Protein backbone atom coordinates (compact mmCIF):
# COMPACT_ATOMS: atom_id res chain seq x y z
CA UNK A 1 0.00 0.00 0.00
CA UNK A 2 2.91 2.30 0.79
CA UNK A 3 4.32 1.78 -2.73
CA UNK A 4 0.91 2.27 -4.32
CA UNK A 5 0.27 5.43 -2.33
CA UNK A 6 3.65 6.90 -3.31
CA UNK A 7 3.35 5.99 -6.97
CA UNK A 8 -0.15 7.39 -7.38
CA UNK A 9 0.23 10.38 -5.09
CA UNK A 10 -2.73 9.25 -2.99
CA UNK A 11 -2.79 10.40 0.59
CA UNK A 12 -3.04 7.40 2.90
CA UNK A 13 -2.95 6.68 6.60
CA UNK A 14 -1.96 3.31 8.07
CA UNK A 15 -2.44 1.69 11.43
CA UNK A 16 0.36 -0.84 11.86
CA UNK A 17 0.05 -2.57 15.21
CA UNK A 18 2.77 -5.12 14.46
CA UNK A 19 5.66 -4.13 12.28
CA UNK A 20 6.58 -7.15 10.12
CA UNK A 21 9.69 -9.28 10.61
CA UNK A 22 11.50 -7.31 7.89
CA UNK A 23 10.95 -4.15 9.90
CA UNK A 24 9.39 -2.28 6.97
CA UNK A 25 8.00 1.12 7.89
CA UNK A 26 5.93 3.29 5.53
CA UNK A 27 7.81 5.96 3.54
CA UNK A 28 4.81 7.56 1.86
CA UNK A 29 1.94 6.98 4.24
CA UNK A 30 1.35 8.63 7.57
CA UNK A 31 0.98 5.89 10.15
CA UNK A 32 0.58 5.04 13.78
CA UNK A 33 1.00 1.91 15.83
CA UNK A 34 -2.24 2.16 17.74
CA UNK A 35 -5.49 4.06 17.32
CA UNK A 36 -8.05 4.37 20.13
CA UNK A 37 -11.70 3.75 19.20
CA UNK A 38 -12.48 7.45 18.71
CA UNK A 39 -9.38 8.13 16.55
CA UNK A 40 -10.13 5.00 14.58
CA UNK A 41 -13.69 6.23 13.88
CA UNK A 42 -12.38 9.60 12.75
CA UNK A 43 -9.82 8.12 10.34
CA UNK A 44 -12.40 5.65 9.10
CA UNK A 45 -14.99 8.37 8.42
CA UNK A 46 -12.46 10.51 6.56
CA UNK A 47 -11.39 7.72 4.18
CA UNK A 48 -12.73 7.23 0.65
CA UNK A 49 -11.42 3.67 0.62
CA UNK A 50 -10.52 1.31 3.44
CA UNK A 51 -7.79 -1.32 2.96
CA UNK A 52 -7.52 -3.87 5.74
CA UNK A 53 -7.04 -7.47 6.72
CA UNK A 54 -10.22 -9.53 6.66
CA UNK A 55 -11.36 -8.85 10.24
CA UNK A 56 -15.13 -8.84 10.70
CA UNK A 57 -15.16 -5.62 12.73
CA UNK A 58 -13.62 -3.64 9.89
CA UNK A 59 -15.78 -5.34 7.26
CA UNK A 60 -19.03 -4.75 9.17
CA UNK A 61 -18.04 -1.12 9.83
CA UNK A 62 -17.40 -0.59 6.10
CA UNK A 63 -20.68 -2.25 5.11
CA UNK A 64 -22.62 -0.11 7.61
CA UNK A 65 -20.95 3.09 6.39
CA UNK A 66 -21.46 2.15 2.74
CA UNK A 67 -17.72 2.60 2.30
CA UNK A 68 -15.77 0.51 -0.22
CA UNK A 69 -13.25 -1.82 1.35
CA UNK A 70 -10.35 -3.93 0.07
CA UNK A 71 -9.60 -6.93 2.28
CA UNK A 72 -6.44 -8.99 2.23
CA UNK A 73 -6.80 -12.04 4.50
CA UNK A 74 -4.18 -12.72 7.14
CA UNK A 75 -2.46 -16.05 6.55
CA UNK A 76 -1.35 -18.61 9.09
CA UNK A 77 1.60 -19.50 6.82
CA UNK A 78 3.11 -16.04 7.44
CA UNK A 79 2.28 -16.22 11.14
CA UNK A 80 -0.26 -13.47 10.67
CA UNK A 81 -2.95 -15.44 12.50
CA UNK A 82 -3.55 -18.74 14.28
CA UNK A 83 -5.46 -20.22 11.34
CA UNK A 84 -6.76 -19.31 7.89
CA UNK A 85 -10.26 -18.21 8.91
CA UNK A 86 -9.63 -14.84 7.24
CA UNK A 87 -9.06 -16.62 3.95
CA UNK A 88 -12.48 -18.24 4.43
CA UNK A 89 -13.94 -14.79 5.17
CA UNK A 90 -12.32 -13.45 1.99
CA UNK A 91 -13.92 -16.18 -0.10
CA UNK A 92 -17.36 -15.66 1.46
CA UNK A 93 -17.27 -11.91 0.78
CA UNK A 94 -15.92 -12.17 -2.76
CA UNK A 95 -18.41 -10.49 -5.09
CA UNK A 96 -20.35 -8.66 -2.37
CA UNK A 97 -20.95 -5.06 -3.57
CA UNK A 98 -18.38 -2.71 -2.09
CA UNK A 99 -16.10 -5.51 -0.86
CA UNK A 100 -12.96 -6.26 -2.88
CA UNK A 101 -10.75 -9.20 -2.02
CA UNK A 102 -6.98 -9.37 -2.65
CA UNK A 103 -5.60 -12.78 -1.75
CA UNK A 104 -1.97 -11.55 -1.65
CA UNK A 105 0.17 -8.41 -1.95
CA UNK A 106 0.81 -9.05 -5.66
CA UNK A 107 -2.91 -8.82 -6.39
CA UNK A 108 -3.35 -5.84 -4.09
CA UNK A 109 -2.51 -2.90 -6.42
CA UNK A 110 -4.86 -4.14 -9.17
CA UNK A 111 -7.69 -4.75 -6.70
CA UNK A 112 -7.17 -1.31 -5.11
CA UNK A 113 -7.28 0.31 -8.58
CA UNK A 114 -10.51 -1.53 -9.32
CA UNK A 115 -12.00 -0.47 -5.99
CA UNK A 116 -11.23 3.25 -6.42
CA UNK A 117 -12.56 3.29 -9.99
CA UNK A 118 -15.97 1.94 -8.96
CA UNK A 119 -18.97 4.12 -8.08
CA UNK A 120 -19.80 4.57 -4.38
CA UNK A 121 -21.88 1.89 -2.68
CA UNK A 122 -23.68 4.14 -0.20
CA UNK A 123 -27.13 3.03 -1.32
CA UNK A 124 -26.51 -0.55 -0.21
CA UNK A 125 -25.60 0.12 3.38
CA UNK A 126 -25.94 -2.63 5.90
CA UNK A 127 -28.54 -1.86 8.58
CA UNK A 128 -27.71 -1.38 12.22
CA UNK A 129 -28.92 -4.71 13.57
CA UNK A 130 -28.63 -8.44 13.00
CA UNK A 131 -31.04 -10.68 11.11
CA UNK A 132 -34.45 -10.24 12.84
CA UNK A 133 -34.84 -14.03 13.08
CA UNK A 134 -31.61 -14.24 15.09
CA UNK A 135 -32.65 -11.38 17.40
CA UNK A 136 -36.05 -13.03 17.92
CA UNK A 137 -34.40 -16.36 18.81
CA UNK A 138 -32.22 -14.72 21.45
CA UNK A 139 -35.06 -12.60 22.79
CA UNK A 140 -37.27 -15.68 23.17
CA UNK A 141 -34.45 -17.42 25.00
CA UNK A 142 -34.04 -14.50 27.43
CA UNK A 143 -37.78 -14.41 28.19
CA UNK A 144 -38.25 -18.16 28.53
CA UNK A 145 -37.02 -19.86 31.65
CA UNK A 146 -36.17 -23.20 30.16
CA UNK A 147 -32.70 -24.64 29.75
CA UNK A 148 -31.72 -26.97 26.93
Amino acid at each position, binding site marked *: MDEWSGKNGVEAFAQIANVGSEGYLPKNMAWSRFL*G*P*DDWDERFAAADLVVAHA*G*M*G*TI*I*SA*LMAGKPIVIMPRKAAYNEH*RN*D*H*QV*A*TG*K*RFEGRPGVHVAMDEFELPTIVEAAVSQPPVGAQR*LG*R*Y*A*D*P*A*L*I*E*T*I*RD*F*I*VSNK*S*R
Partner: protein
Amino acid sequence: MVLDSQHPPKLVREAHRAKKGFQLSYWDNAMEGARVLAVASGGGHWIQLLRLTPAWAGVDCAYMTTNAGLERDLPGGRGSDQRFYVVPDANRSRKLDLVHQVAAVGRVVLRERPTVVITTGASVGFFALVVAKMIGSRTVWLDSVANADELSLSGKRAGRFADLWLTQWPDLAKGQAGLKDGPSYRGSVL
Protein backbone atom coordinates in the same frame (compact mmCIF):
# COMPACT_ATOMS: atom_id res chain seq x y z
CA MET B 1 -20.40 4.45 33.74
CA VAL B 2 -17.15 2.49 33.74
CA LEU B 3 -16.98 0.02 36.58
CA ASP B 4 -13.76 -1.30 37.95
CA SER B 5 -14.01 -5.08 37.92
CA GLN B 6 -11.75 -5.24 40.97
CA HIS B 7 -14.12 -3.23 43.12
CA PRO B 8 -17.56 -3.88 41.79
CA PRO B 9 -20.21 -1.37 42.72
CA LYS B 10 -22.75 -2.80 45.12
CA LEU B 11 -24.49 0.50 45.68
CA VAL B 12 -24.65 1.47 42.07
CA ARG B 13 -26.61 -1.63 41.20
CA GLU B 14 -29.05 -1.19 44.02
CA ALA B 15 -29.66 2.40 42.99
CA HIS B 16 -30.28 1.19 39.47
CA ARG B 17 -32.85 -1.33 40.68
CA ALA B 18 -34.64 1.22 42.82
CA LYS B 19 -34.92 3.57 39.89
CA LYS B 20 -36.27 0.82 37.70
CA GLY B 21 -39.18 0.35 40.08
CA PHE B 22 -40.59 3.67 38.98
CA GLN B 23 -40.59 2.80 35.30
CA LEU B 24 -42.92 -0.17 35.05
CA SER B 25 -43.53 -0.85 31.42
CA TYR B 26 -44.64 -3.66 29.18
CA TRP B 27 -41.17 -5.13 29.04
CA ASP B 28 -40.72 -5.03 32.79
CA ASN B 29 -43.65 -7.43 32.94
CA ALA B 30 -42.60 -9.65 30.05
CA MET B 31 -38.99 -9.71 31.14
CA GLU B 32 -39.62 -9.72 34.85
CA GLY B 33 -36.57 -10.76 36.76
CA ALA B 34 -34.45 -11.19 33.62
CA ARG B 35 -30.95 -9.80 33.97
CA VAL B 36 -28.59 -10.01 31.01
CA LEU B 37 -24.80 -9.85 30.96
CA ALA B 38 -23.61 -9.22 27.38
CA VAL B 39 -19.96 -10.06 26.79
CA ALA B 40 -17.44 -9.68 23.96
CA SER B 41 -13.79 -8.82 23.53
CA GLY B 42 -13.07 -5.50 21.78
CA GLY B 43 -13.04 -5.38 17.97
CA GLY B 44 -15.10 -7.60 15.70
CA HIS B 45 -16.69 -9.62 18.50
CA TRP B 46 -17.95 -6.43 20.18
CA ILE B 47 -19.30 -5.02 16.91
CA GLN B 48 -21.25 -8.23 16.40
CA LEU B 49 -22.61 -8.12 19.97
CA LEU B 50 -23.91 -4.56 19.46
CA ARG B 51 -25.91 -5.75 16.46
CA LEU B 52 -27.92 -8.00 18.79
CA THR B 53 -28.95 -5.34 21.35
CA PRO B 54 -32.66 -5.28 20.33
CA ALA B 55 -32.84 -8.85 21.71
CA TRP B 56 -32.60 -7.44 25.25
CA ALA B 57 -34.18 -4.01 24.76
CA GLY B 58 -36.04 -3.12 27.95
CA VAL B 59 -34.22 -5.79 29.96
CA ASP B 60 -31.78 -5.00 32.77
CA CYS B 61 -28.43 -5.50 31.04
CA ALA B 62 -24.75 -5.08 31.91
CA TYR B 63 -21.88 -5.15 29.42
CA MET B 64 -18.38 -6.55 29.69
CA THR B 65 -15.53 -6.05 27.22
CA THR B 66 -11.75 -5.58 27.08
CA ASN B 67 -11.46 -1.94 25.99
CA ALA B 68 -12.64 1.00 28.12
CA GLY B 69 -13.00 3.23 25.06
CA LEU B 70 -15.94 1.15 23.87
CA GLU B 71 -18.30 2.58 26.47
CA ARG B 72 -19.33 5.10 23.80
CA ASP B 73 -21.01 2.20 21.93
CA LEU B 74 -23.53 1.35 24.66
CA PRO B 75 -27.16 1.86 23.66
CA GLY B 76 -27.33 4.68 26.23
CA GLY B 77 -23.98 6.17 25.13
CA ARG B 78 -21.01 7.21 27.23
CA GLY B 79 -21.79 8.24 30.77
CA SER B 80 -25.18 6.53 30.83
CA ASP B 81 -26.19 4.61 33.94
CA GLN B 82 -25.66 1.28 32.22
CA ARG B 83 -23.24 -1.03 33.95
CA PHE B 84 -20.07 -1.46 31.90
CA TYR B 85 -17.17 -3.65 32.99
CA VAL B 86 -13.70 -3.64 31.51
CA VAL B 87 -11.54 -6.74 31.98
CA PRO B 88 -7.96 -7.41 30.76
CA ASP B 89 -7.48 -8.47 27.15
CA ALA B 90 -5.81 -11.81 26.49
CA ASN B 91 -4.95 -14.34 23.85
CA ARG B 92 -3.83 -17.92 23.82
CA SER B 93 -0.16 -17.10 23.34
CA ARG B 94 0.08 -15.23 26.64
CA LYS B 95 -1.03 -17.55 29.40
CA LEU B 96 -0.56 -15.11 32.27
CA ASP B 97 -2.96 -12.63 30.64
CA LEU B 98 -5.51 -15.44 30.43
CA VAL B 99 -5.22 -16.04 34.16
CA HIS B 100 -5.82 -12.35 34.90
CA GLN B 101 -8.73 -12.37 32.50
CA VAL B 102 -10.38 -15.44 34.06
CA ALA B 103 -10.14 -13.89 37.51
CA ALA B 104 -11.62 -10.57 36.39
CA VAL B 105 -14.41 -12.22 34.40
CA GLY B 106 -15.23 -14.46 37.36
CA ARG B 107 -15.54 -11.45 39.67
CA VAL B 108 -17.91 -9.66 37.29
CA VAL B 109 -20.15 -12.69 36.71
CA LEU B 110 -20.37 -13.43 40.45
CA ARG B 111 -21.17 -9.80 41.18
CA GLU B 112 -23.79 -9.48 38.47
CA ARG B 113 -25.45 -12.88 38.96
CA PRO B 114 -27.17 -12.58 35.58
CA THR B 115 -30.08 -14.82 34.61
CA VAL B 116 -28.67 -14.93 31.07
CA VAL B 117 -25.13 -14.47 29.75
CA ILE B 118 -24.77 -13.86 26.04
CA THR B 119 -21.49 -13.66 24.17
CA THR B 120 -20.07 -13.45 20.67
CA GLY B 121 -16.58 -14.47 21.91
CA ALA B 122 -13.74 -14.70 22.25
CA SER B 123 -11.90 -16.06 25.34
CA VAL B 124 -13.55 -13.45 27.60
CA GLY B 125 -16.95 -14.76 26.53
CA PHE B 126 -15.94 -18.36 26.93
CA PHE B 127 -14.80 -17.79 30.51
CA ALA B 128 -18.00 -15.88 31.25
CA LEU B 129 -20.08 -18.86 30.08
CA VAL B 130 -18.11 -21.31 32.19
CA VAL B 131 -18.55 -19.24 35.36
CA ALA B 132 -22.17 -18.49 34.49
CA LYS B 133 -22.99 -22.20 34.28
CA MET B 134 -21.43 -22.77 37.68
CA ILE B 135 -23.86 -20.31 39.28
CA GLY B 136 -26.88 -21.53 37.32
CA SER B 137 -27.24 -18.75 34.75
CA ARG B 138 -28.50 -19.65 31.29
CA THR B 139 -26.05 -19.06 28.48
CA VAL B 140 -25.88 -18.11 24.81
CA TRP B 141 -22.81 -18.55 22.60
CA LEU B 142 -23.03 -16.98 19.15
CA ASP B 143 -19.93 -18.01 17.24
CA SER B 144 -18.33 -15.14 15.27
CA VAL B 145 -19.36 -14.71 11.67
CA ALA B 146 -15.60 -14.74 10.98
CA ASN B 147 -15.62 -18.50 11.43
CA ALA B 148 -17.07 -19.48 8.08
CA ASP B 149 -15.31 -22.80 7.47
CA GLU B 150 -15.13 -24.17 10.99
CA LEU B 151 -16.10 -23.11 14.49
CA SER B 152 -13.51 -21.22 16.51
CA LEU B 153 -11.66 -23.24 19.13
CA SER B 154 -13.52 -21.51 21.95
CA GLY B 155 -16.71 -21.93 19.90
CA LYS B 156 -16.27 -25.69 19.89
CA ARG B 157 -15.46 -25.82 23.58
CA ALA B 158 -18.36 -23.47 24.39
CA GLY B 159 -20.87 -26.11 23.28
CA ARG B 160 -20.66 -27.80 26.67
CA PHE B 161 -21.44 -24.57 28.50
CA ALA B 162 -24.02 -23.03 26.18
CA ASP B 163 -27.77 -23.59 26.55
CA LEU B 164 -28.23 -21.86 23.23
CA TRP B 165 -25.27 -22.67 20.97
CA LEU B 166 -25.34 -20.83 17.66
CA THR B 167 -23.25 -20.55 14.50
CA GLN B 168 -23.79 -17.85 11.87
CA TRP B 169 -23.18 -20.22 8.96
CA PRO B 170 -25.86 -22.79 8.03
CA ASP B 171 -23.32 -25.34 6.80
CA LEU B 172 -21.62 -25.45 10.23
CA ALA B 173 -24.86 -26.32 12.04
CA LYS B 174 -25.76 -29.63 13.60
CA GLY B 175 -27.03 -32.10 11.03
CA GLN B 176 -24.87 -30.63 8.26
CA ALA B 177 -21.81 -32.42 6.95
CA GLY B 178 -22.50 -35.43 9.18
CA LEU B 179 -22.22 -33.35 12.37
CA LYS B 180 -24.01 -35.26 15.12
CA ASP B 181 -23.48 -32.61 17.74
CA GLY B 182 -23.03 -28.96 16.98
CA PRO B 183 -24.50 -25.49 17.18
CA SER B 184 -27.78 -24.39 15.59
CA TYR B 185 -28.18 -21.81 12.86
CA ARG B 186 -30.82 -19.09 13.34
CA GLY B 187 -29.43 -16.31 11.16
CA SER B 188 -26.39 -14.05 11.24
CA VAL B 189 -25.47 -10.55 12.38
CA LEU B 190 -25.18 -9.45 8.74
